């Protein structure tokens, strides 16, 4: 197997994630923490992020269906999600979080609903792209047979 080609593909994929605005500098900070003692650290962080963000999005969807509208609760959920996005450098998701919070502040229910749908799309896109990226990294790595955490 041509490992150098796989590594080039992975590098190109990662560059694309940055160029398209899915990831920002914070992701590089997370990468800098990966070392021999924690060889899968970045992927572990990503798994945690998608588990946590999935839960928060689900909580938010349920909250949005309830009456009366509780903008404070919605904002609190989104503040948590925004924090998680910031930690991993999920830039486009973070932008949607901020738009949602803006709409919360204005009491704009339709705006909030629209932002949530965009957020879910960005979440799904980032998850798919990062899964592909990590899969390539595993294939390109020294062993080429690392175990795959469930995302």
């Amino acid at each position, binding site marked *: 197997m041509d490992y150098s080609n796989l590594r080039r593909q992975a590098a190109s994929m990662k560059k694309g994630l940055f160029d398209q605005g899915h990831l920002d500098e*914070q992701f590089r*900070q*997370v990468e*800098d*923490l990966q*070392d021999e003692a*924690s060889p899968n*650290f970045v992927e*572990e*962080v990503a798994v*945690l*992020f998608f*588990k*946590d963000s999935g839960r928060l999005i689900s909580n938010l969807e349920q909250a949005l269906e309830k009456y009366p509208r509780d903008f404070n609760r919605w904002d*609190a959920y989104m*503040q*948590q999600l*925004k*924090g*998680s996005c*910031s*930690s*991993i*450098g999920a830039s486009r998701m973070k932008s949607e979080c901020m738009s949602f919070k803006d709409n919360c502040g204005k009491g704009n229910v339709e705006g909030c609903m629209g932002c949530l749908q965009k957020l879910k799309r960005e979440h799904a896109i980032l998850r798919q792209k990062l899964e592909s990226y990590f899969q390539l990294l595993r294939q390109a790595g020294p062993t080429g047979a690392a175990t795959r955490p469930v995302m």
Partner: protein
Amino acid sequence: MTTSTVQGSPVKALIVEDTPIHAFILSTILRKFHCEITVAENGNEAVQLFLEGKKFDIIFCDKEMPVMSGPEAIEKIRALGESHVKIVGVSAGYDLEQSFMSAGADIFLPKPMKFDVVGPIIQEVMNKKNNSMV
């Protein structure tokens, strides 16, 4: 500063954080500085640890958490006479710094945390700890 310059007995760090990803990342950073790490998921758990007689050299504390917020926990910890423990308030938004400092925190770090600021803080705590043991 590199992790290899950190010497002496391990710094006992308490992370007070309800978001798993934040706790995981900060734990990884602190482990690089050979810290002994305990994680509390909210301010109340953190206070309980001190009531049980646990001692820490440094606390990294989030602001918004269920059960008890960071600033409230910090006030209670200081009220227990824990004046020597270094307390770092960590939260998104610079406007939250005042609530931490008023509660008794020593430093405020905004999220997302810049990892290279943690090393000097740990080194300072370690120096203080080792000097007090002489």
